[in-house]
């Protein structure tokens, strides 16, 4: 009964009430995934489960048995920075930094969705194989990640820089 978290096998918690977020934060002391609401409204707890972005506060840890979860700490495990992390620094895509890990994990998952052609509410061509990440697409697709400091412009600029141009779309993988 284990979950793979950032490449490590971790035992599923014995208390079935433990959320994936609390497993990370309280049991494993991986504080990078943030708790902003614990009810699915802010996106601060976003992690990647088998490459897809999920809200870990709404996920019971036991449901993720056998799955592979990557949190902000595992995004660039060798200690270097992921290109998106670089871009956040470059574009000042944060102030307090509390929403930041969620924004970054969410954007990585979002880029994968666009690549797979998943449409959003503002996508014009629902049949396209891949979605061009325009300014509106990025803003719509990132709207589940709240930022109260108002770093929105920098966040979107960082994501556009990393995933908006086709040449670097591979960084999503």
């Amino acid at each position, binding site marked *: 009964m284990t979950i793979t978290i950032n490449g490590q096998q971790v035992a599923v918690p014995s*208390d079935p*009430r*433990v959320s994936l977020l*609390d497993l990370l*934060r*309280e049991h494993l*002391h*991986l*504080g*990078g*995934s*943030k*708790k*902003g*609401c*614990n*009810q*699915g*409204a*802010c996106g*601060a707890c976003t992690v990647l489960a088998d490459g897809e972005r999920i809200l870990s506060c709404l996920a019971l840890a036991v449901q993720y048995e056998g799955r592979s979860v990557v*949190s*902000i*700490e595992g995004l*660039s495990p060798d200690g270097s*920075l992921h290109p998106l*992390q670089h871009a*956040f*620094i*470059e574009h*000042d895509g*944060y*102030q*307090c*930094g*509390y*929403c*930041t*890990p969620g924004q*970054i994990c969410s954007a990585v998952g979002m880029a994968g969705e666009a690549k797979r052609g998943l449409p959003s509410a503002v996508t014009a061509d629902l049949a396209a194989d891949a979605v061009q990440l325009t*300014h*509106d697409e*990025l*803003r*719509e697709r*990132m*709207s*589940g*990640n*709240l*930022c*109260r*400091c*108002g*770093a*929105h*412009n*920098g*966040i*979107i600029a960082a994501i556009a820089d990393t995933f908006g141009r086709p040449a670097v779309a591979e960084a999503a993988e």
Partner: protein
Amino acid sequence: MSIIDTVKQAATGMMVKLTPDAPPDPLIARKHGALGTSVPRIDGPRKVRGKAQFAAEVPAENMTYAALLYSTVARGRITALDTAATEAVPGVVFVMTHRNAPRLKPPALFQTDPRAAGASSLPVMQDAEIHWNGEPVAIVLAETQEQADHAKSLITVAYQAEPARLSFAEAATQSHQPPNVMGEPAMIQVGDAEAALAGAAFKVDLTFRTPRHSHAAIEPHAATVWWDGDQLVVHDTTQMLHQERWTLAGIFGIPEESIRILSPFVGGGFGGKGLWSHQILAVAASKLSGRPVRVALSREGVFRIAGGRTTTEQRVALGAKADGTLAALIHTGIVAMTEHNNCPEQFTFPARHLYAADAMLLEQRVAEMDMLANTFMRAPGESIGTFALETAMDELAEAMGIDPIELRRRLEPEKDPTSGHAFSSRNILEAYAKGAERFGWDKRSPVPRSRREGEWLVGMGVATATYPYYRMPGAAARVTLTRDGHARVAMASHEMGMGTATVQAQAGADRLGLPVENVTFEYGDTLLPAGTIAGGSSQTASIAAAVTAASAKLVADLLKRAGNDSPLAGLSADDVEARDGGLGHRDGGDRFESYASILGRAGLEEVSAEAEAPPPMEVMSYSMHSYGAQFCEARVNAVTGEVRVSRFLGSFDTGRILNPRNATSQFRGGIIMGLGLALMEETEFDERSGRVMNPSLAEYHVPVHLDVPEIDVIWTDIPDPHAPLGAHGIGEIGITGVGAAVANAIYSATGKRVRDLPITLDKLL
């Protein structure tokens, strides 16, 4: 005691020593330093890696987790309280209610003493009495958060409800002037404004309503606390470290020195991260249980026990003469407050300093309600005061048939209209001119509802932004210089995302003549010299003044130590300046010695100096304010009433800009919170029960990515010669004027005036 009183008191006795016209900070003239450059945030790599540790993430051996239970009546008494089922839950360690809580003194209310941090003076869990709907009635500690949350749900409480004051309209009938508003009189009267209004050639007389707001920082309030014998350690998320320490010491009757508070990262503050009841309850419960406590408020908990901006009703009446100058300026109104706190939302402050008028009536009143104490939230007063004043200005310009920017040109005062002081630095018309040009203001049609693109009606609006310059007294900094040419600057100040550590490293580098990478700024810990609060956009100036004092002391000490063998021998502190990693004669000649050489000869590894900033005399002699012009383009859907802000530009006059990249982010952050204030934010208060009805981020709406356009920010960058570094704080001005700029743009688009925030689509149909 107010901030201003504190300043006055601190200044008494120093009057003789300090001339009001102290020479400008020499760093203002220095062109090639670290200041003014976009040094990336020092803590950036930690933040993007998720390695910045916040208060709820601090580990402790033997941790317990707290859950709070909140009252469900607004006024009354607890008549029965049963915790037996809770105590029987496996994992529950301790349950505290008013019956077993230790006797605690009430918190010293913020502003009653410069060291006080209490958001309310109500005693915390000391008896059966209930004062607001949401007051904590029990705290449960358990081995896990899951156990604590479940166990808390098993407590049964019965209340004897009593009549509560829950209607703002009713409370307003009993309103009164507070003794003062932030140390200034609650009422200012010049001439007979009502008579002048009656006789004016053009006039508007309008009522505005603004709702309660929540800071809604994405990090909920949280603390991890423990006792080590009689030593208390509090890992908190706070904007007032030393003030919280002094206040906790008073509540628990222990010496200040036995408390250490750490707060290296604050996940958004905006005025909300002060001393509320949860820290007090956690400290008490930890004392009684002998275990460390993590109290991490749920999002609902934040709405129940940490107050926000209060509701207001304001009147703005403007009377203009035929030449377009003001005969009468009236701004009055009422805010909801409690008798246990003192935050009357200084909404008349902008009108006290912005416009010339023959007669004025500016009056603030408060109405007491039985509710959670309201508190300071990003530009308290100024944010909502400018909504009313600047919307009224737009309406007056229209009544007069002139451009709103032209109206402001005609009303520009020579000196401060209420204090009579000279302005230290005021370039508001330049900010308007620059902004208008860049935004394309000349393309705006003066006729509302004259531009339509498909379903969308498009309009442009403008409004003035303004916020005072404050510098808080009582701050001390320590500067330590090491032989290898590095420096550590230390003060117990706060980083909530403003870029404090980065900008202060820049300032320290220029002050000491060192490269910025050789300077670190230490903050966020009460073991460091006492800092001032992070509030009133004052922290940058407050720190800079203390660092200047400490650096001067350090230079004097270095000269003494340099001795007669130094090329500096015989020079006084006034003759030298810090440059190139050492001290040199101000004449720029070759009398210079490096720090390494001075320390080496003296056989020292490091030298250190600590000093307190002089009292902020500059605010006694000058009218010191920041200004800006906010430009908005709004699109309103003619079918649905939806509003989209499609373009926004802020043009600011806030003294020298210290770090353009950080500054842009801070201005944008304020503007975006202003978009929320304009269009969506409201903490809904049920006037039947006193309960906040939308205590979640799903129902309290803040701007999301799709609501936020690319925001353009420009500035005059003209230094204020009377401010340290020539700079003003910029954390709050961004939100001011935004509400009116948006409302005015919506009017330009649709021909509809909405004077009741937030401007939701139902009000536009």
